[in-house]
């Protein structure tokens, strides 16, 4: 039946069945239209294919297409009449003997038929090749010409690169040797293979033989520096236990540590759970309470079970450590899944109490949801400074995806409706969030789709032929790349700017896992958590990656470490990698200029701050503490104005403060305030006020100084009336409040002097 039907179609639609498609050199020339073939029997098999998959085909049919103008060309075999015939197409350009891949497809059509669309340039030769990888049966296909659609310029594309000689499963894109360039890690039971990324973009591959791993990372792999030797260690989450591969110092090999405990591992993470500065390890248990391994800092790991997700039937699949309440402590969200009745499928959020204990806050936060989920994508999707989450469904049995907005008050609100998350029909065990197009808004990657964040809590889905894998920057170009098995999908980038922040803990764990990285600029604020273990299975970069969109500068970067330390860097260079070591943040050097250094009494001086870097607050002071006042400013103003009321010498000091601490220096400047009478204090220095301090009556011992006028001022420069007695050169002060006061005395010749006294 099928053959007859196919023959009929061919007879009707085909523009000729040539037998000339045996090889590249004899390729049948085609144009837009429907073509048929009776069998795949061409003798030349292409040397390689343009899509992932194996190539053991023994025959291929070749077609040559040369467009007269630029077109978006679709090749499709997706016709019902092709039935269950499974075919595959690859498209090349160039000349026979020097073909390069354009595109290809295996199964995008119905029933494993193929459909591929690619852009063609006028007058170039394109070779369309069907091989018999799956079937040699004949079928019909169509070539369709269409106008080229201009792609959204912010959407990025990926270019696949095949990695050769990969040993084992590719599980991680993470720096392994402390240079903060992401490396590629693949493992099997006896080998750790590391492709170390070199600064020039090449890789150097090393194979480290291990003792046979008691557990292989069939469910998840995490990386972190447990022994703080500068080389990351690995955790293999296996189906019946957990194995650690600990680097020896120098990174020349790995030593296995395997626990005897039965653990049905799911997602695993490294994180400092008890906040002692040493990385611990956490492993989701599928069928029992979660387990964790506490690191005493001397290389000893102690197995623990209980206290962090204790459902007796488990259901723990996707743990992710995220500081949801901005208290600088990583909290734990567990994406959960379990068939049957019962509560093991209810997602859990555990607040880190900072002392190694955790409180289940799932209900109060609105996060206790029965979605059957294996992972969740956490990021601050609206850049309001609080981590939000897309909880991705693995099955629709208990509800689909949810987009939960962090209200910043310890609760979340369901904003799924209308966000584009509600209409995303796919399901997966893998959801991760990164800014793939560097537009400054974190996106979501799940299998075969990127959900681009539009910046307004909505997403636009764009399909890709990639799935979630290990994610890192594997060519150090500031755009995140994706590893799928032995295929590296290199992000082709766009014109957006970026910043990558790499962190190194000192008081905190060496990887800085759990640190919060914030960047400030024209966009406001963006935040990232440094996390080991996101999504379900793979290990991605430990570097904090930010897209900047079109913003051309960054004001500052703040790292809030799990230890409580804070570092701040100002004005980092865009499109660069910024390395921040804990407590290395520079405190300011205080410096300022004075508008003048000599003035007359009653006049003002404006002081202009010139402290660097990144000063966030100022502390001005003047000695002596009286005889002056701030005008339209205060002691914490950036550029204060001070009015000096009383002649004398003043020392003005500035302390500058930024996120890293106070300036180690105090900047000083001396101000000379002259009497408008022009007399110097020195000539009148024999004048003495007594008793000083005084209770009731202040006497002036004036020598031969003939007093013609007396004025009194408070420390704030306010004039206070006096009743001076020339008889005994005294004045009553009983009515004054305790404090410091000044007398301005005028002599016979108009000369003036200021003396201070203290009222008790």
């Amino acid at each position, binding site marked *: 039946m099928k053959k007859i039907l196919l023959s009929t179609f061919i007879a009707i639609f085909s523009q000729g069945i040539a037998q000339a498609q045996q090889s590249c050199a004899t390729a049948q020339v085609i144009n837009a239209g429907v073509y048929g073939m009776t069998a795949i029997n061409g003798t030349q098999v292409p040397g390689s294919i343009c899509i992932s*998959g194996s190539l053991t085909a023994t025959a291929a049919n070749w077609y040559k297409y040369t467009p007269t103008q630029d077109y978006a060309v679709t090749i499709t075999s997706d016709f019902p009449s092709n*039935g*269950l015939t*499974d075919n595959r197409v690859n498209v090349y350009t160039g000349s026979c003997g020097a073909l390069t891949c354009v595109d290809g497809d*295996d*199964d995008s059509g119905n*029933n*494993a038929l193929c459909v591929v669309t690619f852009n063609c340039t006028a007058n170039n030769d394109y070779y369309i090749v069907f091989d018999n990888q*799956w079937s040699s049966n004949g079928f019909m296909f169509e070539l369709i010409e269409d106008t080229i659609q201009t792609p959204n310029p912010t959407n990025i594309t990926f270019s696949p690169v095949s990695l050769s000689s990969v040993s084992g499963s590719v599980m991680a894109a993470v720096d392994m040797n402390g240079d903060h360039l992401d490396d590629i890690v693949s493992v099997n039971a006896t080998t750790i293979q590391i492709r170390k990324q070199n600064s020039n973009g090449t890789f150097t591959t090393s194979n480290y033989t291990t003792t046979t791993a008691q557990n*292989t990372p*069939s*469910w998840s792999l995490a990386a972190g520096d447990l022994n703080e030797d500068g080389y990351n260690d690995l955790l293999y989450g*296996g*189906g*019946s236990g957990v194995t650690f591969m600990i680097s020896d110092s120098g990174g020349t090999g790995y030593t296995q540590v395997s626990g*005897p*405990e*039965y653990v*049905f591992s799911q997602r695993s993470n490294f994180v400092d759970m008890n906040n002692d500065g040493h990385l611990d390890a956490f492993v989701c248990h*599928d*069928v*029992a309470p979660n387990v964790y391994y506490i690191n005493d800092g001397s290389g000893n790991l102690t197995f623990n079970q209980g206290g962090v997700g204790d459902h007796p*039937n488990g259901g723990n699949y996707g743990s992710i450590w995220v500081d949801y309440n901005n208290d600088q402590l990583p909290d734990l969200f567990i994406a959960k*899944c*379990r*068939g*049957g*009745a*019962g509560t*093991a*499928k209810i997602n859990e959020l555990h607040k880190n109490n900072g002392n190694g204990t955790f409180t289940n806050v799932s209900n109060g936060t609105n996060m206790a949801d029965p979605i*059957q989920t294996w992972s969740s994508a956490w990021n601050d999707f609206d850049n309001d400074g609080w981590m939000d989450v897309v909880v991705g469904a*693995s*099955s629709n*049995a*208990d509800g689909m995806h949810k987009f939960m907005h962090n209200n910043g008050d310890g609760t979340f609100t369901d904003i799924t409706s209308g966000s584009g998350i509600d209409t995303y029909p796919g*399901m*997966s*065990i893998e959801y991760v969030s990164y800014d793939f197009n560097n537009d400054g808004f974190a996106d979501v990657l799940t*299998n*075969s789709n990127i959900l681009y964040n539009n910046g307004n809590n909505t997403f636009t889905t764009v399909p890709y*032929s990639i*799935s979630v894998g290990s994610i890192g920057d594997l060519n150090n170009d500031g755009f995140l790349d994706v590893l799928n098995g032995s295929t590296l999908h290199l992000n082709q980038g766009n014109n957006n700017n970026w910043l990558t922040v790499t962190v190194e803990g000192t008081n905190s764990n060496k990887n800085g896992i759990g640190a919060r990285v914030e960047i400030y600029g024209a966009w406001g604020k963006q935040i990232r958590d440094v996390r080991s273990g996101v999504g379900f*299975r793979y290990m991605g970069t430990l570097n904090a990656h930010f897209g900047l969109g079109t913003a051309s500068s960054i004001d500052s970067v703040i790292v809030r470490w799990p230890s409580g330390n804070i570092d701040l860097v100002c004005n980092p260079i865009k499109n660069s990698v910024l390395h921040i070591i804990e407590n290395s943040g520079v405190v300011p050097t205080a410096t300022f200029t004075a508008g003048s250094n000599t003035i007359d009494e009653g006049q003002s001086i404006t002081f202009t701050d010139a402290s660097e870097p990144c000063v966030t607050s100022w502390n001005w002071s003047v000695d002596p503490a009286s005889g002056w006042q701030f005008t339209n400013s205060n002691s914490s103003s950036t550029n204060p104005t001070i009015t000096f009321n009383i002649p004398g010498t003043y020392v003005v000091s500035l302390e500058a403060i930024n996120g890293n601490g106070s300036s180690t220096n105090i900047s000083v400047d001396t101000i000379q305030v002259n009497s408008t009478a022009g007399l110097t204090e020195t000539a009148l220095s024999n004048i003495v006020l007594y008793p000083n301090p005084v209770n009731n009556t202040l006497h002036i011992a004036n020598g031969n100084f003939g007093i013609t006028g007396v004025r009194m001022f408070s420390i704030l420069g306010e004039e206070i009336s006096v009743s001076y007695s020339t008889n005994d050169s005294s004045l009553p002060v009983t009515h004054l409040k305790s404090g410091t006061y000044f007398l301005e005395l005028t002599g016979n010749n108009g000369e003036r002097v200021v003396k201070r006294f203290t009222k008790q």
Partner: protein
Amino acid sequence: MMKKFTALFLFFSIVFAIVLNSCKKEPVEPTIPEVPEAPAPTPTEPTPLPTGVSVDLSTVPYQKLSEYRFFKGQMKDQVPEDGVMPYQLASSLFTDYALKKRFVWLPSGLKGTYIADNKIIELPVGAALIKTFYYDNVQPSGVTKILETRIMIKKSTGWIFAEYVWNEEQTEATLQMDGSNIPISWSQNGTIKSANYRIPSALECLTCHKTNNNPIPIGIQPQNLNNNFTYTSGTFNQLQHWVSKGILENNLPANIVSTIDYKDSSKPLRERLRSFLDINCAHCHRENSHCDYRPLRLAYSETILPENMGICVTPDETLDPMLIKIILPGNFNKSMMHFRLSSTDESNRMPLLGRTIIDEEAVQLLKDYITSINDCNG
């Protein structure tokens, strides 16, 4: 010549002969082992009491397998004590080609009850199910080696698991509930195979043996027992025999929709596959099970519907863009079920637990079935 042998020797000779024969053309598991049963009651006397067996519900699980006294003579010979009934399932779970002997024991005078063809026979409190896993032709010396005996005991609060691991001397098995691995090599039809055999922990037992997290048996459904078993007294239908022996109430329906031996190539492909899926997969792919959130429903009673078997069903998870349907008619290369059955990776393989190597015969069965169908009706 044979007549001069004792019954016991006769039995084992036959077993070994069958095993040897079967080695030449088909796997060992479909062979029906002949196991002596309790002595047949004389018509005028009541069934003898199972005096030998000890199942004290207040102290089980015992530390040693021998404490139950389920077996006569040398325990490794697995000769059941009076009242311990050997049985078989039409199809059985593949566990790295391990061979199995199954027994059921009920307290004296108590009976099991038929509920439905596809429901576990309701057993009384005190009942025990015993399953011993062993290999023949274990390398290098080619001996038979028993690895483990799994027991389920029904207490008033429900079923419990007891896992016993045999010693090297094969004289005793000791309670061990934490799981372990035993590397083993054996000759399978003349080919040396190896596995890192998994002794399950209690949690692994429960992962498959549960409904809504309550422990349950899997195999003893009437649909799996409605077949002939060769006892020393003759070959009988197991269910009828249980009734006649007084351990099953006589309320069986006239017709029982039954599974078949999936390794019996004389049977229809679809029925064989459905039987395989029932005993190997349905404990997780049915309502109230570990994975009931996936669309598959693989119990024999449910795979009547092709979509329950995954035919033309898009998988929830895209493991590989090539695996476009759970079963794509006519194309096993693009069928997720074929990929998972052919995988040994812990996170890709199916079944999830119970095997570390590939059930080659089952993969071939699935391939043959997929190749044989050309539409979504299966």
